[in-house]
């Protein structure tokens, strides 16, 4: 069974056009239609760990909202757990957990444990499951130390862990994570990623993650779906993507005397500039920076070297160009 099935899904928004004509703006606006999501299709199996990436405004959150039952598609089919999510909002909600990285679902002025008790009532969680989950997740996420403190007194990392626990209390079959590691320090990020993997391994929860942090994808997801301008650009296992689209590093070398020609085998491109600089672009999976540098230094006199690792934008741009 596909836990999520999306077929030719589209979502349009009407946006008021900012006209030059002031009066028209006040009284009768013209609208343009923005196609936030255009005819996308994919299926997700139970227990998968899928990461959604893409530039801001690409349509990621629109897609997630449709899966969560918050937004109604303009056209196409969507089935989550074999039901149409927006037509069965409440029953769909009982089976999904959502973690918004930028917004807590905990009651701000109450202790964490009280939020859990309230959620127990809202999700109608049976006593035994509630106890089991608060204990298990409480331990894994290490929230026992601060579970009785009001949420407003917690650090971001603590709050995120508590939010993660809260989203799992009702044993959701699908977990939607929207930027779960945003703003966290490196140590906590690592913890959260481990926990998500662990929860998936132990309980078979399907995890759907949106993020701008490639390391999140790297360490958690088995599959990457990249969305840009409302369409799916990539839908491949993470391993494939990492290997083939790692992106180019660049070395900028300042020559004492710029050669007429510079041959760097296995490099993507070599650009010779007027100001004595050469910019060499290469894939570090194919050839390492050390080899390139030692090779060139052995033949030329170099004044300065700068090495730049591939940035996420490069990777995404590369992915997009493919």
């Amino acid at each position, binding site marked *: 069974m596909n836990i999520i099935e999306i077929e030719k899904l589209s979502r349009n928004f009407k946006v008021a056009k900012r006209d030059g004509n002031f009066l028209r703006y006040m009284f009768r606006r013209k609208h343009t239609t923005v196609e936030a999501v255009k005819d996308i299709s994919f299926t997700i199996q139970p227990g998968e760990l899928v990461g959604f990436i893409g530039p801001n405004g690409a349509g990621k959150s629109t897609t997630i909202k449709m899966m969560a039952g918050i937004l109604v598609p303009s056209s196409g089919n969507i089935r989550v757990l074999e039901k149409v999510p927006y037509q069965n909002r*409440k029953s769909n909600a009982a089976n999904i957990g959502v973690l918004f990285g930028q917004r807590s679902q905990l009651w701000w002025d109450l202790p964490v444990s009280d939020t859990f008790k309230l959620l127990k009532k809202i999700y109608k969680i049976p006593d035994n499951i509630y106890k089991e989950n608060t204990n298990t997740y409480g331990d894994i996420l290490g929230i026992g130390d601060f579970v009785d403190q009001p949420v407003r007194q917690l650090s971001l990392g603590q709050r995120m862990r508590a939010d993660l626990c809260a989203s799992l209390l009702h044993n959701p079959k699908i977990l939607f994570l929207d930027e779960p590691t945003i703003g966290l320090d490196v140590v906590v990020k690592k913890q959260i990623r481990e926990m998500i993997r662990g929860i998936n391994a132990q309980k078979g929860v399907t995890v759907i993650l949106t993020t701008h942090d490639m390391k999140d994808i790297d360490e958690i997801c088995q599959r990457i779906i990249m969305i840009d301008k409302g369409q799916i650009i990539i839908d491949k296992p993470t391993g494939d993507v990492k290997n083939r689209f790692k992106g180019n590093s660049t070395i900028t070398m300042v020559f004492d005397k710029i050669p007429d020609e510079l041959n760097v085998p296995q490099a993507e491109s070599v650009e010779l500039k007027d100001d004595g600089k050469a910019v060499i672009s290469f894939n570090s999976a194919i050839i390492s920076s050390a080899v390139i540098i030692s090779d060139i230094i052995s033949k030329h006199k170099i004044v300065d070297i700068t090495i730049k690792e591939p940035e996420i934008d490069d990777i995404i741009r590369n992915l997009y160009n493919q």
Partner: protein
Amino acid sequence: MREFFSTYWLYIKTFFKSRAEYRVGFFLGLFSNFYGYFITYATFWVLVSSLGHIGGWDFSDLSILYGLSLLTYAISGTLIWYTVYHLGGIITGGGLDMYLTRPLGVLRQMIFQRFGDTFIGQIIVTIIFLSMAIINKIGTLTPALFAYFLLCIIGGVLIQAGAMILIGSISFWTKRSAEIGELFYYEIRDLTQYPLSIFPRWIQLVLTYVFPWAFINYYPALIILNKTQTVYDFILGLLSPVIGILFLSVSLFVFNRGLRKYSGAGN
């Protein structure tokens, strides 16, 4: 229904538990609300003191008139003022999405998001003056009158809640909800502090057929104080609780419409 009340009760308990930490602040806020509305009553008292009466209404009459309005407003406020009235902020903060991902109605969730504890000050001051006025003016209430009184309070709460929900719902369509609300709800409703008979007839009509604020306190007061002039007034008075149900239904309809717009259903 039972689930709802038991959840709400749990929420109130936990809310006050956490408030206990800020005991001083809590009581201070409560007192300032108490005092503020006490001054309003004092204002009426001064007026009546020097004028004798306003349109035939003495201080006890005015207490009951205003009391009905304030009590129903405060009760409504404890439930939904901090959340539904400020729906605009909740939408921009992403709170509405959060509510939509939970298996419970959005309005219900907003009720247990924030209890309007500051309104308790109003409730206390108005109960004091209401009781004094009733004892003074009417003596003991007959069972029929008492039942009617309760029904009017419930009806009034429904109207006030309906108004707050309506104003909050404006946020689904535009950002200007706060100002529109201030004007059509607060400012216009303030007219009902005084017996509508002292204003030109058209004002009474507006407050009956356009904005039903007169049903919160004026018409019920007419019946309770035996001041009805015409059969017409009497009927409107009896209808007051019913108007509450009707108005709230309209508000809920608008709210759900707004929710559907938000989700893009039918777009």
